[in-house]
C-alpha cells in the first residue's frame, strides 16, 4: 500500500461524515481562479486540510442551493491528470476514485486553448463535468471574444462564463451544477477517438479488464492509461477495487499484470 491511498481514504471518509447531498470536485490549471470560485460559492476563506504524507493541500467547503447541501473540494492546480507529479496524482485520484457527483473545470478565458487539454482529460474520465470559463473580465479587456454556445456544443458539457473575483456568473454556475447533479441533465461529452491501431488495442484491453473493474471505473480510460504504461494508476486501482483483503489484492494484482504483459 502506498501512503497516497491511505490519504485518499482518510479524506474521503472525512467527507462522508459531513451531511452533504453531493460532492463536487474543482479542477483546473494553476492560477485560473479555482480558490476564488470556491470562496465565492462557499463564502469561506479557504479552509484547508493537509493531504497526509504529501505536501499537497486540499480545501473543502459547503454551500446550500435549492435545499441541497453541496460539498466542494478544491483540487491542486494542474496542467494534466497524467500523474506527472504528486499534485497531478492527487487531482486524478480524487476525480477517479473519490466518486464526485460532478467535476467543475475552471479555465482561464485569456488562454483557453492551453486550458482545454485538462478539460479533455477530465471528460475522458467522467461525463459529469461542467466548464467554468473564468476571468472573462480579463479576456474582455484583452479583446478576446469567446463563442460560448459553440464551445458548449463542441464539448458536450455545460459551459458557464464567470468573473469569480466580482462574483459574476456564480449563480449560473450553481444552477448548472444543480441541473447536472439533481435533475440528471443528460450530457454528451465529446468522445476522443485515437488512431485505429490504438482503438483496437483499447478495445482488447477493455474486454480483459471490464469484469475486474466491475463498472466502478471507466474501463476505456483505464485501458488508455495502461497503454501509456502508467504504473501509478495500476497501484491505485488495485487499492481501490480489490478492497482490503490480501487475497483479492494478490489476485487483482496478477490480473493486471497479465494485462500489462499483453500490452
Amino acid at each position, binding site marked *: 500500500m502506498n501512503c497516497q491511498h491511505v490519504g485518499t481514504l482518510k479524506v474521503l471518509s472525512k467527507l462522508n461524515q459531513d451531511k452533504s447531498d453531493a460532492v463536487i470536485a474543482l479542477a483546473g490549471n494553476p492560477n485560473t481562479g479555482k480558490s476564488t470560485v470556491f470562496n465565492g460559492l462557499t463564502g469561506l476563506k479557504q479552509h484547508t486540510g493537509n493531504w497526509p504524507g504529501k505536501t499537497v493541500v486540499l480545501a473543502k467547503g459547503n454551500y446550500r442551493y435549492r435545499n441541497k447541501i453541496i460539498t466542494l473540494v478544491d483540487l491542486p492546480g494542474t*496542467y*494534466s491528470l*497524467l500523474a*506527472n507529479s504528486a499534485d497531478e496524482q492527487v487531482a486524478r485520484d480524487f476525480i477517479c476514485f473519490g466518486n464526485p457527483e460532478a467535476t467543475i473545470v475552471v479555465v482561464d478565458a*485569456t*488562454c483557453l*486553448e*492551453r486550458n482545454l487539454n485538462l478539460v479533455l482529460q477530465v471528460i475522458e474520465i467522467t461525463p459529469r463535468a461542467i466548464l467554468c470559463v473564468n476571468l472573462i473580465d480579463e479576456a474582455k479587456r484583452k479583446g478576446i471574444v469567446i463563442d460560448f454556445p459553440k464551445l458548449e456544443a463542441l464539448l458536450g458539457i455545460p459551459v458557464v462564463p464567470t468573473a469569480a473575483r466580482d462574483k459574476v456568473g456564480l449563480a449560473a454556475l450553481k444552477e448548472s451544477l444543480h441541473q447536472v447533479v439533481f435533475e440528471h441533465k443528460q450530457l454528451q461529452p465529446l468522445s476522443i477517438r485515437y488512431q485505429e491501431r490504438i482503438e483496437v488495442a483499447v478495445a482488447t484491453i477493455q474486454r480483459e479488464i471490464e469484469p475486474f473493474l466491475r463498472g466502478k471505473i471507466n474501463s476505456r480510460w483505464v485501458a488508455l492509461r495502461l497503454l501509456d504504461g502508467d504504473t501509478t494508476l495500476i497501484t491505485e486501482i488495485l487499492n481501490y477495487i480489490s478492497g482490503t483483503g490480501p487475497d483479492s489484492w494478490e489476485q487483482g494484482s496478477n490480473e493486471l499484470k497479465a494485462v500489462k504483459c499483453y500490452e
Partner: protein
Amino acid sequence: MGYAEITLTALPIGQQARVVNVGMQGLTRNRLLDLGLVPSSLVKAVRKSPGGDPVAYKVRGAIIALRSEESRLITVWPLD
C-alpha cells in the same frame, strides 16, 4: 518558405515557427505536451532571460520558459 527545420533553440527572438517534433521521452515530454507544445502547434520565441537561458516562448496563448537542454530536442519549421 525557403527555411529548413531547425531546433527550437535556434529560433530567433520574435520569430514564429510550427512544431515538427518533440524529441524527448518520459515526464519531460508529457509535461511539454500538456503545456500545448505538440507537433503542429505554433510557437514564438518571445525573449531571453538575462543569462540567455531559459528562453520564454509563447504557445497557445500562454508563455512558457524552456531551458536549452529542452529546446534543443524540439524541432520546428520557422515561418515568415
